[in-house]
């Protein structure tokens, strides 16, 4: 291999390196120069995560060879901050990104910094269009782009300001006092130490500085000496027997330390259903399933060895859709299903029928309900499988130590669940396994449960205990790692002439794909929420999780609710129109109200919140007028507009015993570390927890530190970071821990100040004897114990523990689904206005108004960030995203052909409304709102498209082609709209 001397100036420093010809600039910068800000997101120049400034121009560093840039100047996000006497100062751009709430997981942030900087340098006062063009090449899955655009606008208007980068300092300055473009003006948080609360104020993210500087370390940024790189061999067949795997050539190749096949690893995994092997063994069940893996000194060597592995397959008949899977005599994806382990009493698989779980909901008498109805309607809806597409792909770094200890560093949502499932699979005691989670580049549910960790462990064990890092390629993220399940819904509704729903009968068929280790719980949760936020006296739901030979499904933001509410909320509009009642009025007549029972028999109380208020707010905001096109609008009719409304609800989907804990450890200077094991992979929960801790401990925010790395050895137990439950459960745990600290502080201060503890008041980081302003102690004097002038000491380090467990939840009855599954419901609604280009079918969302009853807004900026990000992700599901299969093989397994929203695809206007009906068990009354913003965005868009065009769409996504062809067919059939005649449902997908 010839090496080439390459001289380049990086962030002002000139260096010369010897590099092989095939080395990419992204690898040179990240791996050789350890510039961790240069992220790899796709490797094909679609996502922009690796954007750097090369001789003044933004470029994708994955599309440049290192040898090409000899003599060039390169700038990365590490060079963006300015030198200052007290350490680096954040640039105006970096400060604006933090202040505008434009940071979430932070993985795409360095690339965005570079794109924006290159623009601002060439054009110091760009307009919005120019900003959007400059940012459109940077994918971001969290923020919804709008806050990012606003941040660049802030700088472009000369209103940005640099500031010190010290962590914590970024979290206490004024939050974007500059004029926003369309967004709400963030409140200015109270200055530290004033004693006024932080909860409820727009405190900027505490992780902002690390993310805008590119110093936040993700798994791929953590290399350890002697580390091996792992690569996978995946199946090209959807279903096949593995006849033989020849690894002999691969094993003998240079640098190769371990080669594994399914024959070497007989382990099955799963959170709820243990059906997933670490490597395919004897059979493959989906195209993309890993059948062999290699660990080698370099990634290139591992790749070459993978290419040298010969697998002989005997293809078998695949099961490619849910109806075929349920048919009598269908091939069984899991012939041994009956012998698997699963969570008994909660899940009910049907071996021999490809059914992983059948959730039944039975309430009232559905036949009587239909008999009482004046009209009965039936509609069918479909959602395709889609991908989470976090910008950071799954990654794990594992060491199987010779002494039997296992160290796992992973990009996961739930360190304790990884540990529990890992230990169960390998028969290890929990205390022998350590799971650490550093910064995580987006999860959205795809990183819940357990994924690459077991395979990396097996490779490390086979390689004599050398550390093994396995990072999924973007293609593997699509075709090997899990997606959101597809869904086919059939909804039958009985309704009276005056708009009361008397009966609802629903069949949900989930396309779980080859494994349902997590998907079974989606089938369960979406069933108990599967009638929408309505009072349905007679309800029958069958939610059936079906195995097929396709890439498997898992949790995805909203956990089945976006899918079922696509049908339910389109159905509400269809039924309302058919009986001649305004869709908003129809919803109001049927909404759950205090005193009603949910479909599982839960009594609705005032504390549940106000879905009616959410509906009213969004209807008013978008100027709902109930208008709709009278006749189908034909292609070629120019641009038409319409408005649509949809409701949503969701409660955390979790086991009845879900628990969480927090510890607060005081430091000697009176500051405190708040330790939790929930993960902040972008939602902003750590910032909210810091606000809560600061208020509870009466400390300024800068004295609170939430360590970013969760570690099962040091941070206390939490179940999983999923289901919008972390701020609620973690918040409660932090409150309890803080109050325990305060008790200790008061007791000790009372002893020293000679007053009873109840006469000690804590504020401004000090303990005060009530009524004696001169008798006061700084927390620093108490934090590690108090020492009298003579040296005698009392007390001891202040340590608080807090815990929270869901109480009162019950399993659902196997036959009726009756029970109490929900810790708290969050209700919400979206109102949208769309414009449809009838020439092309392209839908553009003009306006989205969203309202949620969050109980209490802990942080307005972070709440808004969740909503904007979720709405844009929902627009992706509504208009763009779908898996396209051929013979079970995923055709669009890259960002080239799996399109997600860019900065150009966002709605013109997004507004957020928060209702605050306190939840009795929530911290300060708060409910979760992380997933909810994405739910029902497609439904509202679908209703708006129907109102704009007079044509009903039943299948997602409403991409331009589907809409165009739908209008064309409807125009030809000259549009009967009742039932599904003249609609697009039931037709095969137009684009394969």
């Amino acid at each position: 291999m010839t090496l080439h001397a390459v001289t380049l100036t990086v962030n002002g420093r000139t260096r010369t390196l010897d590099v092989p010809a095939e080395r990419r600039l992204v690898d040179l910068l990240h791996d050789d120069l350890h510039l961790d800000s240069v992220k790899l997101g796709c490797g094909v120049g679609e996502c922009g995560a690796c954007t750097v400034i090369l001789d003044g121009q933004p470029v994708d560093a994955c599309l440049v060879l290192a040898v090409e840039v000899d003599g060039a100047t390169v700038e990365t996000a590490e060079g963006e901050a300015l030198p200052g006497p007290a350490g680096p100062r954040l640039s105006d751009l970096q400060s604006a990104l933090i202040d505008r709430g434009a940071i979430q997981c932070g993985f795409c942030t360095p690339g965005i910094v570079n794109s924006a900087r290159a623009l601002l340098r060439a054009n110091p006062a760009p307009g919005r269009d120019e900003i959007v063009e400059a940012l459109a090449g940077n994918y971001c899955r969290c923020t919804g782009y709008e806050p990012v655009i606003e941040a660049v606008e802030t700088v472009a208007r000369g209103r940005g300001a640099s500031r010190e980068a010290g962590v914590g300092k970024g979290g206490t300055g004024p939050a974007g006092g500059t004029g926003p473009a369309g967004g709400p003006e963030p409140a200015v948080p109270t200055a530290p130490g004033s004693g006024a609360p932080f909860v409820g104020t727009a405190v900027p993210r505490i992780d902002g500085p690390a993310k805008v500087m590119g110093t936040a370390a993700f798994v791929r940024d953590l290399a350890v000496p002697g580390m091996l790189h792992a690569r996978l061999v995946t199946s090209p067949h959807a279903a096949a027997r593995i006849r033989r795997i020849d690894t002999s050539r691969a094993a003998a190749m240079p640098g190769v330390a371990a080669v594994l096949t399914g024959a070497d690893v007989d382990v099955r995994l799963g959170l709820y259903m243990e059906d997933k092997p670490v490597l395919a063994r004897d059979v493959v069940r989906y195209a993309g399933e890993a059948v062999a893996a290699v660990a080698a000194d370099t990634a290139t060597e591992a790749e070459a060895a993978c290419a040298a592995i010969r697998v002989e397959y005997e293809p078998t008949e695949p099961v490619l859709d849910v109806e075929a899977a349920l048919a009598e005599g269908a091939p069984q994806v899991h012939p041994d299903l009956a012998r698997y382990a699963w969570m008994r009493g909660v899940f009910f698989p049907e071996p021999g029928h490809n059914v992983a779980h059948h959730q039944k909901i039975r309430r009232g008498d559905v036949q009587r309900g239909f008999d009482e109805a004046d009209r009965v309607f039936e509609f069918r809806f479909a959602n395709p499988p889609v991908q989470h597409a976090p910008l950071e792909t799954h990654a794990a770094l594992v060491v199987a130590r010779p002494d039997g200890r296992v160290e796992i560093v992973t990009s996961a949502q739930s360190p304790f669940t990884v540990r529990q499932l890992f230990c169960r699979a390998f028969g290890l005691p929990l205390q022998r396994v350590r799971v650490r989670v550093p910064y995580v580049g987006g999860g959205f549910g795809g990183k819940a449960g357990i994924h690459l960790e077991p395979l990396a462990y097996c490779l490390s064990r086979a390689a004599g205990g050398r550390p093994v890092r396995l990072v999924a390629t973007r293609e593997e993220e699509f075709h090997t790692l899990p997606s959101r399940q597809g869904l086919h819904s059939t909804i039958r509704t009985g309704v009276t002439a005056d708009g009361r729903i008397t009966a609802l009968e629903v069949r949900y068929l989930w396309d779980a794909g080859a494994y349902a280790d997590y998907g079974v719980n989606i089938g369960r949760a979406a069933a108990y929420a599967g009638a929408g936020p309505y009072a349905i006296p007679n309800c029958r739901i069958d939610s059936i999780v079906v195995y097929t030979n396709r890439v498997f499904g898992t949790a995805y933001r909203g956990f089945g609710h976006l899918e079922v509410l696509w049908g339910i909320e389109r159905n509400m509009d269809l039924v309302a129109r058919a009986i001649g009642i305004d869709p908003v009025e129809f919803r109001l007549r049927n909404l759950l109200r205090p005193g009603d029972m949910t479909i599982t028999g839960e009594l609705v109380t005032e504390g549940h919140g106000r879905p009616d208020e959410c509906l009213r707010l969004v209807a008013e905001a978008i100027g709902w007028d109930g208008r709709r096109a009278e006749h189908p609008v034909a292609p070629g009719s120019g641009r038409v507009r319409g408005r649509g409304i949809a409701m949503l609800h969701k409660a955390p989907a979790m086991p009845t015993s879900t628990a969480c804990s927090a510890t607060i450890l005081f430091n000697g200077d009176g500051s405190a570390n708040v330790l939790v094991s929930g993960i902040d992979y972008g939602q902003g929960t750590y910032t909210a927890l810091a606000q809560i801790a600061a208020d509870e401990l009466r400390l300024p925010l800068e004295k609170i530190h939430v360590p970013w790395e969760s570690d099962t050895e040091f941070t206390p137990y939490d179940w999983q970071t999923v289901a919008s439950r972390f701020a609620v459960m973690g918040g409660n745990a932090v409150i309890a821990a803080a109050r325990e600290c305060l008790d200790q502080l008061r007791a000790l201060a009372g002893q020293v100040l000679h007053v009873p503890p109840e006469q000690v008041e804590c504020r401004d980081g000090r303990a005060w004897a009530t009524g004696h302003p001169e008798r006061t102690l700084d927390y620093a004097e108490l934090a590690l114990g108090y020492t009298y002038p003579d040296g005698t000491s009392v007390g001891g380090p202040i340590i608080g523990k807090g815990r929270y467990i869901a109480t009162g939840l019950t399993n659902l009855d196997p036959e009726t689904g009756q029970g109490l599954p929900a810790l708290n419901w969050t209700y919400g609604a979206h109102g949208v206005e769309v414009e449809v280009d009838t020439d092309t079918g392209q839908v553009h969302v003009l306006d989205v108004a969203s309202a949620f009853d969050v109980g209490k807004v802990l942080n307005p900026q972070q709440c808004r960030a969740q909503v904007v990000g979720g709405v844009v992700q929902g627009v992706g599901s509504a208009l763009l995203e779908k898996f396209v299969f051929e013979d079970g093989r995923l055709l669009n397994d890259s960002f080239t052909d799996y399109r997600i929203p860019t900065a150009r695809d966002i709605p013109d206007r997004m507004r957020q409304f928060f209702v605050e009906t306190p939840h009795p068990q929530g911290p300060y009354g708060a409910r979760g709102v992380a997933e909810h913003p994405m739910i029902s965005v497609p439904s509202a868009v679908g209703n708006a498209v129907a109102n704009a065009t007079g044509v009903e769409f039943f299948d997602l996504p409403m991409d331009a082609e589907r809409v165009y062809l739908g209008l064309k067919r409807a125009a030809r059939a000259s549009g009967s709209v009742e039932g599904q005649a003249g609609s697009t449902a039931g037709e095969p997908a137009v684009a394969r």
Partner: protein
Amino acid sequence: MGGFRYERPTTLREAARLLAAAPGASVLAGGTDLLVGLRSGVARPELVVDVKRIPELGRVGWTGDGDLVVGACATLATIASDPRIAAAFPALAEGARAVGSLQVRTRATLGGNLVNASPCMDTAPPLLVLRAEVCLASAHGERRLPLEDFFRGVKATGIEPGEILTSIRIPRPARPGASGFEKIRRGLGHDLALVNAAAALDGPEAPLDGPETLRVAIGSCGPVPILLPPVGLAGLDAEGAGDRVARIALERIRPIDDVRASAEYRRDMTALLCRRLAARLLAGAGSER
């Protein structure tokens, strides 16, 4: 990514010599297609010849006659933002701007886009309607080829082994500024074209006193971009011209169903783009034309 030798000639002569000696070599310009191919293993060259440091390949210049000569290594970002190009050849500027994200356009080159010869390339339809020709050089000398004779199939061109595309020459337009480009994509972000089309108003075909014509080319609807025969505009208003062009286009395109779109959608969008372009270019034109 497999290993290869890397050479970075600074003269055309040296580049030609390297390519002549290594038939399996890949020419590296912007790299935005080559690096994707190297990563996937589709491209496995033994030698990569980086031609970006050959000065004349990066030049954009105008002849005394008003012809535009674009060096093969001029980036699409440069072309998209050049006001003189936008004024004379809007279709080219719009086509260049439609490629990829800004990060891609700052690297991708006009020559690379053409040599890659993907059916959906956005710069080919504009250059076809603008009567561009390509200049090819080798150790044996230089030759010119009209662009319509350059494309031979999916990812196949008329470049002979050892040859390099050095420049693209676009003659002074009969109607400066009277051209345009349109593209159908998934969503509003950067995407490969489901269908693209360019059109240019052109002078009369022989005899020279004949009517004005409209030149139209369609991409992504066949193995190579399709240049329609010039459509005479005599007696046609914008709508009539659009209909006629659409009809001719639909007779000639060969769209397929694939992961990006159905053939039916491509056909209908082809007709739409033809009508849109005719409307744009003939706005206000009366039937006296």
